[in-house]
């Protein structure tokens, strides 16, 4: 199982999913219409490291975070 967290303004509870890579995650999340815009403008971190492609294998216990557009300061 991997855990998926939605950060900042994305109003969605964490998910526990049985997936092995980020492509599977994309397919699953794209079924949720409320996430559509967030998927196009959020960055993705695996175990707190931002990744730049979906070619990432996942293992049991991994944490995935969606980071929507930021504005610190």
């Amino acid at each position, binding site marked *: 199982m991997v855990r998926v967290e939605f*950060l*900042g*303004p994305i109003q969605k509870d964490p998910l526990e999913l049985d997936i092995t890579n*980020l*492509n599977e*995650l*994309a*397919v699953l*999340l*794209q079924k949720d219409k409320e996430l*559509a815009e967030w*998927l*196009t*403008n*959020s*960055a*993705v*971190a695996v175990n*707190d*490291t*931002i*990744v*730049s*492609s*979906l070619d990432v294998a996942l293992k049991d216990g991994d944490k995935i*975070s*969606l*980071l*929507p*557009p*930021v*504005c*610190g*300061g």
Partner: protein
Amino acid sequence: MLSLYDGALDVPKILKEWYEAEATSNYGAYIPFVGTVRSEDGIDGLSFDIYEPILESWYKAWEEKAAQKGAIIKMAHSRGDVMLHESSYIAAVFSPKRRIALEFIDAFVEDFKASAPIWKYDLKNGERVYAKDRSTAIRGSGILGAKQ
């Protein structure tokens, strides 16, 4: 040093602590950047969410960039609500020479704005509204939205 505070920053106290901490470190230049909540669009204040694990790794990478130039950085940021004319952000660089300090503070603050995992909300009429229009997608965003 990265310090997070609940609510507004005590700017004079933090600027003084940082100055005194490096008083004998032989840095010739100290440049803090202080960000303060402005009155605009009828807001009462701002509010911030921070995702600390990634903020810390982002900050650590900038510490290393600073070290390569013989400089050091410090940063303070607010969590939660910060009202009008209060300050929520201080970033600072200390370096032996002024050019490095002037260039570094600019790059550090700009990358902070573009990359640090902090989300800003307007406090207005008792509501907390995501400042979507002023927010920036982190580089590499959108990969989950591409059609499979």
